[in-house]
């Protein structure tokens, strides 16, 4: 791989501009887990005219439902879940200032358009590499919806979390680029 690229949260405009689909980056800072049930609650909350339990401006959401933390560890195995299930909710959150999403798998055209419009990024974490990804997590704190168990919103402090840029603000999509390059 080429030279290692490190980025931090909160994510600023300069970082967003520099990220290109296909590159590997290492992310450090605070990120928030949220998957199916938490997203549904986010949108229900917004529809009721209420505030989200977290300020998502310039933040990164990780589509992840970790396995339980064994004693003495901040988290269990914590790889990404399939992002497409969050596609119906993502454009709204991007419009409110969310800057990054981490998951695995294809996004809808609406999400890709919102990534361009609101200047954000979609990262892929290696699906099924939950043990490896857990080594990037320094600490975890439940922020909301504790009753959802593995689906609760958890703030993770991460250091050098290995990610690939899938969708950037320039309309590039690593999944499409990859297939075009290697299809025989």
């Amino acid at each position, binding site marked *: 791989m080429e030279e290692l690229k490190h980025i931090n949260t909160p994510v600023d405009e300069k970082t967003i501009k520099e990220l290109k689909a296909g590159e590997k980056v290492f992310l450090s800072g605070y990120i928030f887990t949220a998957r199916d049930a938490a997203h549904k609650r986010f949108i229900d909350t917004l529809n009721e005219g209420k505030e989200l339990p977290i300020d998502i401006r310039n933040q990164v959401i990780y589509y992840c*439902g970790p396995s339980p933390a064994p004693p003495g*560890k901040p988290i269990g195995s914590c790889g990404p879940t*399939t992002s497409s299930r969050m596609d119906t909710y993502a454009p709204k959150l991007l419009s409110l200032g969310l800057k990054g999403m981490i998951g*695995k798998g294809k996004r809808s055209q609406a999400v890709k358009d919102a990534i361009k419009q609101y200047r954000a990024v979609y990262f892929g974490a290696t*699906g*099924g590499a939950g043990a490896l990804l*857990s080594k990037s997590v320094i600490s975890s704190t439940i922020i909301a919806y504790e009753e959802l168990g593995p689906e609760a919103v958890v703030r993770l402090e991460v250091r050098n979390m290995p990610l690939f840029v899938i969708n950037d603000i320039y309309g590039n999509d690593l999944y499409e680029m990859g297939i075009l390059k290697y299809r025989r």
Partner: protein
Amino acid sequence: MREIHINEIINSLEKLFIDANINLSQSVLECFERSIEKEESPAGKEVFRELIKNATIAKEEKIPICQDTGLAVTFIEIGQDVHITGGNFIDSINEGVRRAYKKGYLRKSCCDPFSRKNTGDNTPAIIHTKVVPGDHIKITVMPKGGGSENYGEVRMLVPSQGWEGVKSFVLEMVNRGGPNPCPPIIVGVGIGGNFETSALLSKEALMEPLGKRNDDAAIGALETELLEAINRTGIGPQGYGGTVTALDVHIKMMPCHIASLPVAVNIQCHAHRIKEAIL
């Protein structure tokens, strides 16, 4: 008649599910090693390096390879000369699963289809039983993640579609899944039987050892043909583009109705977790 107490079944299931979720089999690891060489894309090679590192960390730290520790799929062969004592056989399987998912800090991923309320202990297990000759019980466990399972399908083809129909169905499934089922994948294809047996055959196909071709050389050749076609899709490891989209393809086949050609495709992710024990 040999007596086997349910405690043996419970203990065995507990151990197997924890072991399967934490310790990736040597055969899968070796397949990753070989794939680094085969894979042409730099990002794809990097994914394989991450997967090898992941398996090592999981083993050292005793945490699951993947946070999706799956529904608890079990295949149990019961010798016809075995008498199970001490309680209910089905309950004992679920008890073993319950203990494994609690003690092993495995994620409970089983919920009500509509309310989505979690059952809390990853039961009920998926239980497939077969009565076989002998006086042993063979237990095989395969914790199966949701991401890959979502990209399977059963389809009743028209007999005239033949092998070409089967092949295009499998490729359609692989392309539809793309990066979502966590490639590199393993593809199980069940052909024949009826609606439900084709699905079961496709799951059983996933349990075949990696790299092993079907005993019937003609079917083995079809497996190779499919594997090569899948690896020409360009999807690659994690869908980042590449030449290793699937680690293997296995076909299981049986006769079917004169009017039918049932085909099932079951996709497995690279976190290919299978362990077995004989009681």
